[in-house]
């Protein structure tokens, strides 16, 4: 994002603050700002989530379509990320103004979800070689207050957690063509297994230290930030006890911004990223499971942008 204009002494103040592990709003370098999450608020999508992290506001919707698997990977489904920077966020995004940022985030998400250890595309297969589900994950950025990547990954994971795929009742083979019969019952559907879905952690290098969850002001003080995608821990998302402790692996690492880093900083930062990602994953799982429990008890009413 085009940086905020800051004066040299404001930047200095922020840099000194990071050095001192005490930021302008009282957080330490490893603290996140409070977030708010809601799922299932877009009726036209199969799964959706809205995340608000301080001023950053996102809406993610998952739409499912039936597609033909690629010939190289006949037993895998497809997932596609698409980011749209709404001009509501800033007038700079008007027209095609937000495209560069949008493509950057979409590519990052695509890379993070590439490995089957991050997201198993086999669960989207309907009929090997013929039919599979294609998930369109549409991310709409409504307001920017720093730390977009982390927020996007959290909202995407929540939206996927909320996604219900209709059950296939029957597959009819008519010559070479496949005819699917989907269940009409809206409650007859399956949930996706998203426990391992990766979360992105942005480590913003300010001065000599790295901070998580940078605000827009902090982002403009930094010349380079490191984005790590770390796979989730499925045991957080499930009641089953005997799940193998997997996850916590890097699914993508990328550098952003015009600066460079020393190898040691990079090594420290990725370790810091793992710690942060595990905490994020736990908090997200807790929130999602709570919400699901709440919805079972009471009839869900969507808050959305009201209230």
């Amino acid at each position, binding site marked *: 994002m085009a940086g905020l204009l800051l004066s040299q002494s404001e930047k200095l103040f922020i840099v000194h603050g990071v050095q001192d592990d005490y930021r302008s709003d009282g957080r330490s370098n490893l603290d996140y700002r409070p977030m708010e999450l809601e799922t299932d608020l877009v009726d036209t999508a199969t799964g959706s989530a809205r995340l608000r992290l301080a*001023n950053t506001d996102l809406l993610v919707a998952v*739409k499912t379509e039936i597609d033909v698997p690629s010939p190289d990977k006949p037993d895998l489904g497809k997932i596609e990320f698409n980011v749209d920077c*709404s*001009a509501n*966020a800033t007038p700079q995004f008007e*027209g095609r103004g937000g495209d560069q940022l949008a493509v950057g985030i979409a590519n990052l998400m695509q890379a993070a979800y590439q490995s089957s250890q991050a997201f198993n595309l086999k669960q989207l297969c309907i009929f090997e070689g013929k039919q599979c589900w294609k998930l369109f994950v549409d991310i709409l950025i409504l307001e920017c207050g720093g730390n977009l990547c982390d927020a996007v990954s959290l909202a995407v994971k929540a939206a996927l957690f909320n996604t219900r795929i209709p059950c296939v009742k029957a597959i009819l083979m008519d010559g070479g063509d496949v005819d699917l019969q989907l269940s009409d019952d809206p409650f007859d559907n399956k949930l996706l297994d998203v426990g391992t879905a990766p979360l992105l952690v942005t480590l913003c290098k300010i001065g000599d230290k790295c901070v998580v969850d940078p605000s827009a002001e902090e982002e403009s003080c930094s010349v380079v930030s490191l984005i790590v995608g770390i796979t989730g821990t499925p045991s957080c998302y499930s009641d089953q006890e005997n799940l193998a402790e997997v996850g916590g692996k890097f699914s993508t690492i990328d550098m952003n911004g015009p600066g460079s880093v020393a190898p040691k900083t990079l090594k420290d930062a990725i370790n810091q990223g793992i710690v942060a990602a595990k905490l994020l994953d736990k908090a997200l799982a807790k929130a999602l499971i709570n919400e699901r429990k709440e919805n079972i008890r009471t009839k869900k009413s969507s808050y959305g942008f*009201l209230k």
Partner: protein
Amino acid sequence: MPGPDLLSSQGLRLDGRRPNELRRIQCKLGVFTQPDGSAYLEQGNTKVLAAVYGPHQAAKSKSLQDSVVVNCQYSMATFSTGERKNRPRGDRKSQEMSMHLRQALMAAIKTELYPRSQIDIYVEVLQADGGAYCTSVNAATLALIDAGIPIKAYVIACTASLAWKDGEPEPLVDVSHVEEAAGGVVLTVASMPSTGAIGLIEMSHRLHMDYFDTVLSRAMQGCKDIEVILDKVVREHLAEGWTKSDDAITI
């Protein structure tokens, strides 16, 4: 004549409404902190977010000496419709919508107050279930009010259609997507109900001259009804932000 099936034998519409009944309207002003004004509006299942930036300094190339530049962008989220859209904006339809939006709002904004400035109005349709344009106009009006930009009166848009009941014409207000798709006439009116001025009229499909007035007056009635609802919300919003220490009244 299309549309005999738009009304049931009991005189109810496909979604159970009466012909002159609006869909449920819910809204909120000031949803975001960064824009100068913002609003969220739901009309039935059509959901729209609007944000207003400005008035701020206009770019040199656009700047007008005697009035404000109003800049609108209408955009539909890719997931807003049943079928996924490929592009949120830039296609012909949304460009046309942006133009219509601008036209309707320009009629109300007191443009002469802000020379060399610019007002940006951005509308994001999150869910479209018929009447997305109307909801956008209404949401934009609320966002303008939230931003404290002077307007002559509420700009309200509403649609109306025509159905047949026992051989008699029966106009329908606030057309939903299903009714739109059924192929009847859809008349869109953007007006300032309190002054009676009309900013924009658009109609699709064919309608006999004789029935135009009835359909139009039903749409206008719809606008008036919506205005009452929105006015109430605006007042509530003002009251909510009211604190006692406010020294506003200095008589």
